[in-house]
């Protein structure tokens, strides 16, 4: 066993060795170790290189706030993760870990040259250092900065793990299972509420795990803890470990990321790696505790320099001494206890340097009893050692004057600048903070959410205070939820709360320009950078933050924000509360993309809606295209056909004989009630009063701005019932718009809307043989032009199924749309195909549908319109019920700019050469020889090769186009300019003779 492992100490299993590798070296730890504690037990502090200067770094903390000890972990193929905090990753046999930011080796790194060129990398260096020549930015400077600065390398393999998510509703969510959180959960749960207690660590207990000497209720801390956890379980509290509350959102929604498998040697079946919980809590109790503050002095980032509380955790929780010969520098009492605990376990304490003149007599006596040299009113002005701290320079401070330094040999230097309440989650809620002048820190003040803060999170130090406050806040939360609750009182013995002082940089006798006193370890920001930022004109803490990047790393300033603020405030000559704190952003700790994606990846990435007939299309080789969430058959190529050939054949066959088309995706809304016609009159531009039951009409829907929003054929089934169809993509939008008007403007109308899109499978049959095909299936219904003329609808039985049969056409051919209950759609389709063999029935897709309608000049909303096209612009002025008192958009149509003669209007375009197909979206000019930039008068909206016209056709929006029939326009393309003639948009059968069959 390594000499740094303390037998019998900590919560690791000393009888259960576990081997893993770090940079290829086999490391033996103990079950219960983290990577950091196992490496420290083996005497290794050097675990990585820093972000900007590539300085050697070791762990400075023992928890999730760790900024330095970021490693790569690999659990198998596709299971590499960069930037894992070594202080949080539990070890298991075979775990592979690597250090980061080093080339070629962790111990000898070429990038460390940055450290010597540090003067180039001061605050805002990227704005200043790399200014000239400008052309160097893209090719030299930026690639160099990107390569040199940064942390781990992104994984290159696809992630093979699975991720999950769940919703959780709980009455009380307690974040943090330290003494305050445990007591809060208990108080709330004792009233019968649903309580959830989460903690980011592998086990619950928080500070109790590092302070086993405390006695609670006469029980040793760890015995009390075990008892509490068992009791909470019995009370039905949902206990979740390895679960981080990553963000606190509106209305008490808290995001939790639960890590399920990263600590396991073998992956359990059907178990995701991580699960994101979206928790909706009646009350949230934040019991996140406090984070220890580093001291700011030259060389405070050397491996071996760490927070005193972290050393105490490594000793008491993991049974690891962080060094043999330890120096301590502190401005707070708590560091003494770390020193005493280590001294009692065999480490030699070289010196305790306290910045304060006055120290508690009891602590002084304890130092004396252990023979620990104590230097009051002293400072630390530097450290030495390349890959590990070897000595620390200690100077007396007298009357503001820093005396001569004396070096103390040490292999670890513990520092403590006091404690900062963890305000991150509270800060997510935009709760306000108040400055506590005594503690020199911010405390939570006004809450914006149903939230309580307990324990050290609101500045209460010590186990006793945390227990008491937890119970109080738990009861408070229960009372807020209407429960009768009382807080129990517990007594903790051997508690060591302590007090301290706050500092900016420690006083030094060194020139300020040389000092590398780090404030933000992860982003390599020094005190000097912060002062430089203020000197260069940054006044707001927000600007100082962005200019220096202080607090902007993935640790979100857990260690740096308060020190950064104090130094900036000092440089500005203002008190801290006037300077203010920057906002902490979620997530609290770095969270994998997998956790956010959850189930939504691979086949489950996004919903794909399929019609009842989709399976037939798939079996018959359809090429699909997405249309909103649906996938629709675009065309049905035969062997050897490309899209143009297939579409041309489908168009020809439909016009010659019969085409069949799956129109099930069309939106359908059933408008029912005594005021149905009144509602339709107000909603659509067209008049509806005179539409008789059994007849159908093309309906046009505008926004209140007068622009076309949607269109579709609408059938009147009865006086009080309309079958409205919408575009595929517009279905949900149109229903929402209608409901909006109905509920907010016209709540007096007795009319109701029901989406029936999915109730019906819709089969469109078009072509001269359409009637002949369906006649045998309609139970003797008269389908003749007199009984069922163009634009009519009838309810009938089709192949024995209830049916709404429309005679309508979006192709210009004789057309029917058969609506049958969705479950029968496929069977009806199959039977039609089978029965229509003699008519050479041709299935066609959306592309052919687009061509056929363009040949007739029918618009597609969203293709030929773009949200700025009025009915008159689109040549649909005939659809306006001009005599109606009102309809949505009517007033807007009278706006001066909507009646201008020179508006862009929909016209047809035929290229002069008769062969060139224009590009959709191409811009149109009147004079191709004008100087650039040319005056654009419009653009091509639709363009196809038309079999019926025997040439390419196009639709376009052109300024004043309807008054320019026969004129030539020009379409400049990269390689040439194409001339085209403005025509009517009806290219085929302009008299609609083919509809009258």
């Amino acid at each position, binding site marked *: 066993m390594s000499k740094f492992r303390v037998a019998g100490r900590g919560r690791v299993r000393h009888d259960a060795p576990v081997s893993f590798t770090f940079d290829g070296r086999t490391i033996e730890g103990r079950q219960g170790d983290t990577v950091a504690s196992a490496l420290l037990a083996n005497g290794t502090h050097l675990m990585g290189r820093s972000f900007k200067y590539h300085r050697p770094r070791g762990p400075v903390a023992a928890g999730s706030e760790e900024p330095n000890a970021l490693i790569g972990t690999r659990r198998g193929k596709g299971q590499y993760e960069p930037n894992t905090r070594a202080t949080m990753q539990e070890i298991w046999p075979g775990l592979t870990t690597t250090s980061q930011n080093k080339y070629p080796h962790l111990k000898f790194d070429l990038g460390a040259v940055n450290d010597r060129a540090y003067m180039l990398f001061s605050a805002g260096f990227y704005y200043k250092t790399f200014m000239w020549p400008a052309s160097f930015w893209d090719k030299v400077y930026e690639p160099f900065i990107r390569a040199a600065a940064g942390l781990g390398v992104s994984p290159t393999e696809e992630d093979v793990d699975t991720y*999950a*998510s*769940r*919703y*959780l*509703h709980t009455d009380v969510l307690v974040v943090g299972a330290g003494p305050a959180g445990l007591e809060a959960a208990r108080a709330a749960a004792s009233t019968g509420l*649903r309580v959830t207690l989460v903690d980011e660590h592998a086990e619950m207990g928080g500070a109790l795990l590092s302070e086993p000497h405390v006695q609670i209720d006469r029980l040793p801390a760890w015995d009390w803890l075990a008892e509490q956890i068992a009791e909470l379980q019995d009370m039905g509290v949902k206990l979740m470990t390895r679960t981080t509350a990553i963000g606190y959102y509106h209305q008490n929604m808290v995001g939790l990321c639960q890590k399920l498998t990263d600590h396991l040697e073998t992956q*359990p*079946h*059907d*178990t*995701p790696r991580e699960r994101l919980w*979206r928790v*909706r809590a009646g009350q949230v109790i934040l019991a996140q505790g406090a984070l220890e503050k580093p001291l700011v002095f030259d060389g405070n980032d050397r491996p071996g320099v760490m927070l005193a509380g972290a050393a105490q955790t490594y000793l008491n929780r993991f049974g690891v001494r962080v060094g043999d010969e330890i120096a301590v520098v502190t401005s707070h009492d708590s560091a003494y206890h770390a020193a005493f605990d280590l001294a009692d376990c065999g480490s030699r304490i070289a010196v305790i340097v306290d910045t304060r003149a006055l120290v508690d007599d009891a602590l002084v006596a304890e130092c004396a009893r252990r023979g620990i040299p104590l230097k009051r009113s002293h400072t630390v002005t530097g450290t030495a050692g390349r890959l590990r701290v070897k000595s620390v320079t200690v100077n007396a401070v007298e009357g503001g004057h820093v005396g001569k330094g004396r070096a103390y040999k040490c292999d670890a230097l513990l520092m403590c600048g006091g404690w900062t309440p963890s305000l991150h989650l509270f800060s997510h809620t935009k709760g306000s903070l108040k400055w506590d002048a005594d503690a020199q820190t911010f405390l939570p003040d006004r809450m914006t959410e149903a939230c309580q803060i307990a324990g050290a999170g609101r500045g209460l130090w010590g186990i006793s205070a945390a227990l008491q406050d937890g119970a109080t806040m738990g009861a408070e939360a229960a009372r807020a939820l209407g429960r009768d609750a009382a807080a129990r009182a517990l007594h903790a013995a051997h508690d060591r709360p302590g007090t301290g002082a706050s500092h900016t940089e420690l006083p030094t006798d060194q020139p300020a320009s040389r000092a590398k006193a780090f404030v933000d370890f992860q982003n390599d920001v020094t005190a000097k950078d912060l002062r430089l930022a203020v000197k260069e004109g940054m006044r707001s803490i927000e600007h100082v933050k962005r200019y220096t990047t202080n607090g902007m790393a993935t640790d979100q300033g857990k260690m740096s924000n308060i020190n950064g603020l104090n130094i900036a405030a000092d440089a500005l000559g203002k008190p801290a509360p006037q300077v203010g704190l920057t906002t902490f952003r979620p997530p609290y700790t770095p969270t994998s993309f997998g956790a956010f994606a959850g*189930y939504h990846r691979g*086949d*489950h990435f996004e*919903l*794909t*809606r*399929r*019609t*009842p007939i*989709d*399976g037939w299309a798939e079996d018959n080789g359809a090429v699909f295209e997405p249309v909103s969430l*649906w996938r629709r058959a675009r065309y049905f190529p035969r062997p050897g056909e490309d899209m143009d050939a297939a579409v041309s054949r489908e168009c020809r066959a439909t016009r010659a004989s019969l085409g069949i088309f799956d129109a099930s995706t069309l939106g359908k809304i*059933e408008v*029912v*009630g*005594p005021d149905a016609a009144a509602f339709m009159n107000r909603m659509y531009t067209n008049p509806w009063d005179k539409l008789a039951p059994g007849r159908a009409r093309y309906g046009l829907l505008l926004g209140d701005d007068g622009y076309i929003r949607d269109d579709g054929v609408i059938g009147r089934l009865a006086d009080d019932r309309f079958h409205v169809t919408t575009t595929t993509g517009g279905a949900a939008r149109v229903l929402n718009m209608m409901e909006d008007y109905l509920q907010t403007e016209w709540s007096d109308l*007795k*009319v*109701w809307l*029901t*989406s*029936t*899109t*999915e*109730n*019906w499978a819709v089969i469109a049959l078009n072509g001269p043989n359409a009637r002949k095909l369906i006649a045998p299936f309609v139970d003797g219904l008269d389908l003749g032009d007199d009984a069922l003329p163009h634009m009519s609808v009838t309810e009938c039985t089709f192949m024995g199924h209830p049916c709404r049969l429309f005679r309508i056409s979006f192709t210009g051919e004789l057309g029917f749309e058969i609506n049958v*209950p*969705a*479950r029968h759609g496929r069977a009806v389709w199959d039977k039609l195909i089978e029965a229509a063999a003699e008519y050479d029935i041709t299935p066609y897709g959306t592309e052919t549908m687009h061509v056929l309608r363009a040949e007739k000049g029918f618009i597609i909303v969203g293709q030929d319109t773009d949200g700025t096209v009025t009915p008159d612009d689109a040549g649909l002025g005939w659809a306006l019920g001009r005599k109606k008192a009102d309809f949505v958009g009517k007033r807007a149509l009278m706006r001066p700019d909507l009646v201008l003669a020179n508006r862009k209007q929909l016209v047809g375009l035929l290229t002069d050469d008769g062969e060139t197909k224009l590009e959709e979206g191409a811009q149109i000019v009147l004079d191709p020889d004008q100087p650039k930039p040319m005056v654009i008068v419009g653009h091509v909206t639709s363009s196809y090769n038309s079999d019926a016209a025997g040439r390419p056709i196009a639709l376009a929006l052109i300024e004043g186009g309807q008054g320019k029939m026969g004129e030539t326009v020009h379409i400049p393309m990269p390689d040439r300019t194409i001339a085209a003639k403005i025509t009517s948009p009806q290219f085929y059968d302009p008299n609609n003779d083919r509809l009258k069959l």
Partner: protein
Amino acid sequence: MTIHPHDLTPGKIAESAACKVHMLDPVARFSLRAHEPERKAVADALELDLPWYVGDVAKTGETEVLNLGPDEWLIVAPEGQTDFASRTVDAPHALTDISDRELTFRITGPRASDLLTLGCPRDPDSIKPGQGRRTLFDSATVVLWRDGENDFRMDIWRSFAPHAVSLLALGCAELAAE
């Protein structure tokens, strides 16, 4: 686990020690709308009990009526037992056949309610046995009926069903592995 539309036939979809998902046979389903002043007249004419409280279910014979909102009820009846739909109602109302709009899945088992939390943002505890709600599952609108403590029915628009049900099936395995 991916489920295709053609996999969706009545019968077992997924099963584990934690939960079971079955697709149910088709039923007759109607959306009924009427304003509160006309509720009683409409109920009398249809010879159905129309519950007043949102989320409550009333049963008339084998016909179930769920109040989905202040002016909205969902009527579910065995196929062929829809006499109410042809009765004359003079009071203003809207009755629309939506039998084929949704498919229905039954979710049972000791972790049935936890299974719903994979995709449903609503608190399952807020739906008492014998009640129902319109809510979301994996971003699709669904109607959730709680027939018993561990017995749910989910009505979901047919094109959304394969996506949602594949998550239910995956959840069956995930919950069983816990």
